[in-house]
């Protein structure tokens, strides 16, 4: 507003100054006229003419420089006598074409009536001030001028036209809509246009250049159709037409205009029909450029559509079974690629050791060669630049492959081979671990990858990462399920699954094959009613299932008849399976064929018994001297007694019968003693079958001591017994336990015999503790060197010259076979102590041995 007013003030100021000059000029002319007359007049006239020429010479430039169009005219003859340069410039007519031609005056005035009006006014009043007139320039442009006229001498007049065309146009806009005009002025982006009813652009504001690149002048020379987007031209015309019919109508519409650079800008137009508005008489349109806004909006819409696409891909991936994930990823790549107008999209997966990568999924537009085949197990180190990004889990984009850095020479080569112009690489990260990358490529053009686009592609990477992770997990799970089933089926044991009622839900192949049954024969049947059990076992099995259903682990030995009729021994168990709440939901029956194991065990036991026997025989061999002594002692007595009896009987006289009776009894006792020794030895030497019997441990100890009695005497050692009364009872192979004791006793005796000690004692103590009997054999010998404490249990480890070194190992295995253990420890006094335990039977009320 203020700017316009200023312009207006300036113009009016100029006009006033011009007026003042014209007044001055005409006053001079009047003075020159007054001094005219006579010869003197001639001289004066010459002088005056000279002055006039001088004045003219002075004023001509002033006139020429005056921005107002000026002319000197003869109103009577309607002849233009002179025009200034502004006239020629603004109207476009050459001076020679208009000067001196009678009747030419006013030819440029568009309206004939106005022309006459003006000429008549000048002729009658001699002067005219501020008359508004429309002129047509040589280029057929209408301009609005204010007309000023001043009379000169000789009936001539000076007429000046002041161009107010722009002013008028601006005023028209002001009148049409003060508010909009203000907005227009304040928002320099808005462009104001005025059209006549033919659609010809009368005016456009300079801001047009900012929007469309054309200057207002260039713009005016263009037809609206040349500027309009071809698709919008018809609509624009319609809008204009419909507006044209309704004076004062305001319409809003949007269309695209061509920028000088050939691109199209979208403008939002407000059109107003002000044809009837005084001083305007134009269709006024104001538009502003919304290309960016529209672009942003389109981008937003694009982005929303993209997000919708992503979420579709994502939900597809989430709901798919693992087997279909690969296809879904491939189609996801295609959808994104097509949507983004890309040419190639692919997934590169790193090897487990992160030294190689392979293209696992790919989409590319038809005509491009897929990269998948070429990039399998490709060394990661061959693309160091990309590798560093990848391993750091960084997304990166390359708008122009030609601008790849020097160190990415290999990457550039690959891009060239693929025809890639620009690409983006997004890491696939699962649990913080980089698994691979999603790559998107363009081939036909380069493109920028704005930050939000990169973000969205990162989302793609995440979707794929999740899907791939799920696929891997599921495939592992499936593998694991397959494996589990394989284990189940091919398990060496017979196994299955049943519900708590005992109905069989599954049986493994081993079990089915064992019974020669098909699944259909057994599944759904009560377990005790299956071919594995014979009728006698049914109640046992039912009872076991009831117990297991109450949460008990049930285990027992049984026999199953194999399909070939062979009876096999089984270690059978029922394990309850509980749910998270602890309720038993299934039972797992399991049968371990222990036939062979049992046979092996029996064989082993037999072998051990035989070995023990051999060891006993060996011991007996070593004990021969002792045995001989034990037997020879009573035999010796018998011989002597018999001899004595013989002597008495042969002597003369009456024999002493008391003596004879006494000796006879002694013979019997001696013979009994010899018989005892023989019996003990025969028992000790008996063949190796293991014979368990319940016996009193004290008896076993005493018998053992008797077996080594001679050896104890021979080395001068006493054997002390500390036996509890009543004697604990044990279920043992009597002879084998004797063997152990004899072995320990003889070891003790020998150890003491070889040493220089004075006091030679072996003490056997039996103690009952909890549910076991502990027997200890402690001697007063030098004890065992510490390092020998374990070594003595090693077979063939012996310090004896003639020992086999089997005594302790066999003793140990005998004790272990009885469910006890044998160990050694050195007592505080450095004596050797051997201890062994045996499971004790509950005490009986009656006294033991």
């Amino acid at each position, binding site marked *: 507003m203020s700017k316009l007013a200023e312009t207006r003030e300036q113009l009016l100021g100029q006009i006033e100054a011009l007026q003042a000059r014209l007044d001055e000029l005409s006053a001079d002319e009047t003075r020159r006229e007054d001094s005219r007359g006579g010869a003197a007049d001639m001289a004066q006239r010459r002088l005056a003419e000279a002055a006039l020429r001088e004045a003219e010479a002075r004023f001509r430039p002033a006139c020429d420089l005056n921005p107002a169009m000026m002319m000197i005219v003869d109103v009577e003859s309607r002849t233009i006598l002179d025009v200034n340069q502004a006239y020629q410039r603004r109207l476009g007519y050459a001076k020679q074409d208009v000067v001196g031609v009678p009747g030419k005056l006013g030819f440029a005035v568009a309206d004939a009536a106005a022309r006459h009006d003006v000429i008549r006014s000048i002729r009658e009043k001699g002067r005219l001030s501020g008359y508004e007139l429309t002129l047509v320039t040589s280029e057929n442009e209408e301009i609005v001028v204010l007309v000023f006229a001043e009379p000169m001498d000789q009936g001539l007049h000076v007429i000046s036209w002041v161009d107010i065309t722009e002013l008028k146009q601006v005023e028209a806009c002001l009148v049409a809509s003060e508010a909009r005009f203000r907005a227009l002025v304040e928002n320099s982006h808005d462009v104001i246009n005025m059209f006549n009813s033919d659609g010809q652009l009368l005016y456009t504001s300079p801001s047009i250049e900012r929007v469309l690149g054309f200057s207002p002048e260039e713009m005016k020379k263009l037809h609206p159709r040349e500027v309009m987007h071809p698709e919008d031209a018809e609509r624009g015309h319609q809008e204009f037409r419909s507006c044209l019919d309704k004076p004062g109508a305001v319409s809003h519409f949007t269309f695209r205009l061509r920028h000088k650079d050939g691109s199209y800008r979208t403008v939002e137009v407000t059109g107003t029909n002000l044809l009837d508005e005084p001083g305007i008489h134009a269709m006024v349109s104001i538009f502003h450029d919304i290309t960016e806004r529209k672009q942003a909006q389109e981008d937003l819409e694009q982005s929303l559509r993209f997000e919708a696409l992503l979420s579709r891909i994502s939900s597809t991936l989430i709901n798919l079974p693992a087997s279909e994930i690969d296809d879904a990823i491939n189609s996801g790549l295609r959808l994104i690629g097509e949507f983004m107008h890309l040419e190639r999209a692919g997934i590169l997966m790193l090897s487990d050791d992160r030294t190689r990568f392979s293209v696992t999924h790919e989409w590319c537009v038809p005509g491009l060669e897929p990269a998948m085949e070429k990039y399998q197990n490709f060394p990661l180190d061959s693309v160091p630049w990309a590798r560093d990004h990848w391993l750091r889990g960084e997304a990166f984009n390359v708008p122009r492959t030609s601008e790849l850095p020097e160190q990415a020479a290999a990457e550039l080569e690959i891009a060239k081979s693929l025809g890639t112009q620009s690409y983006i690489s997004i890491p696939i990260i699962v649990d913080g671990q980089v698994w691979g990358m999603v790559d998107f490529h363009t081939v036909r053009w380069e493109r920028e990858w704005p930050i939000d686009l990169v973000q969205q592609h990162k989302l793609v990477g995440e979707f794929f990462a999740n899907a791939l992770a799920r696929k891997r997990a599921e495939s592992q799970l499936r593998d694991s399920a397959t494996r589990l089933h394989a284990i189940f089926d091919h398990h060496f044991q017979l196994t299955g699954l049943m519900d708590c009622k005992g109905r069989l839900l599954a049986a493994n192949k081993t079990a089915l094959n064992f019974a020669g049954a098909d699944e259909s024969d057994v599944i759904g049947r009560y377990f005790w009613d299956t071919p594995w059990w014979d009728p006698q076992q049914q109640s046992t099995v039912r009872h076991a299932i009831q117990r297991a259903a109450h949460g008990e682990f049930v285990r027992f030995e049984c026999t199953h008849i194999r399909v070939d009729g062979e009876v096999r021994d089984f270690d059978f168990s029922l394990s309850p399976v509980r749910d998270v709440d602890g309720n038993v939901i299934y039972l797992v029956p399991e049968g371990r064929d222990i036939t062979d194991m049992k046979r092996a065990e029996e064989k082993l036991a037999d072998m051990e018994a035989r070995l023990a026997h051999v060891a006993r025989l060996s011991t007996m061999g070593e004990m021969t001297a002792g045995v001989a002594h034990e037997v020879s002692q009573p035999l010796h007595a018998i011989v002597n007694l018999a001899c004595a009896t013989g002597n008495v009987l042969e002597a003369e006289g009456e024999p002493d019968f008391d003596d004879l009776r006494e000796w006879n009894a002694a013979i019997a006792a001696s013979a009994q003693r010899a018989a005892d020794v023989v019996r003990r030895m025969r028992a000790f030497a008996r063949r190796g079958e293991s014979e368990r019997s319940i016996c009193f441990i004290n008896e076993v100890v005493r018998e053992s001591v008797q077996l080594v009695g001679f050896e104890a*005497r021979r080395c001068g050692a006493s054997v002390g017994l500390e036996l509890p009364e009543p004697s604990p009872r044990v279920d043992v192979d009597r002879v084998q336990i004797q063997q152990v004791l004899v072995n320990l006793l003889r070891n003790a005796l020998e150890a003491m015999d070889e040493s220089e000690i004075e006091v030679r004692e072996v003490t056997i103590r039996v103690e009952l503790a909890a549910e076991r009997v502990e027997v200890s054999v402690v001697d007063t010998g030098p004890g065992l060197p510490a390092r020998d404490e374990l070594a003595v249990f090693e077979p063939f480890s012996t310090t004896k010259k003639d020992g086999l070194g089997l005594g302790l190992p066999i003793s140990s295995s005998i004790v272990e076979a009885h469910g006890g253990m044998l160990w050694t420890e050195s007592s505080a006094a450095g004596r050797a102590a051997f201890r062994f335990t045996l499971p004790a039977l509950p005490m009986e009320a009656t006294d033991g041995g």
Partner: protein
Amino acid sequence: MAAEQTVYVVDDDELSRGSVCALARSMGVRAESFSSAEQFLRHYRKGQPGCLVTDVRMLGMSGLELQQRLKDLDIPLPVIVMTAYARIPMSVEAMKRGAVTFLEKPCEENQLWEAIRDALAQDAATRAEFERRDEYRRRLAALTSAEREVMDRVVKGEANKVIAKRLGVSIRTVEARRHEVFRKAQVNSVAELVRLVMSTGPVK
């Protein structure tokens, strides 16, 4: 000094011990039994006649140790060693120590009987020998030192005149002393005298 011979039986085995005592009794010989060598040693008095029947293996002192001890104590009791566990070295050692018999248990019929009989006989013989020697010693003890001096030289085989010359006495004196020696020693010849002197042990 108890004149009656006794069989001393040392054995830790009661049956064995009893049977040996029975055998002795059946031979009409007194028997005493001990369950250990120590017990026997405490009881036995030097000079008691008889014999010892001992087992080798016993608690405490063994039979062989007992034999050694008797020897050390200069007790000439004949010893019969018995063992159920005979070894040659052991028997040789026992023999060296002067055991009369070494028997293995069980011995053959009458073997022990004979051994006891022999042992008692030996004991009796030894004792008779000892008594004879004592008699000779008593006879020699009756000699004067001059007579003794002449006897020693006679035993060495010196002639009377050599003796007279060495001793610086007359030959008659030598003959007188010599006669007195023959009378006191109750011998009739130089040979008898030599045997008598020899049997009394080393010449003092």
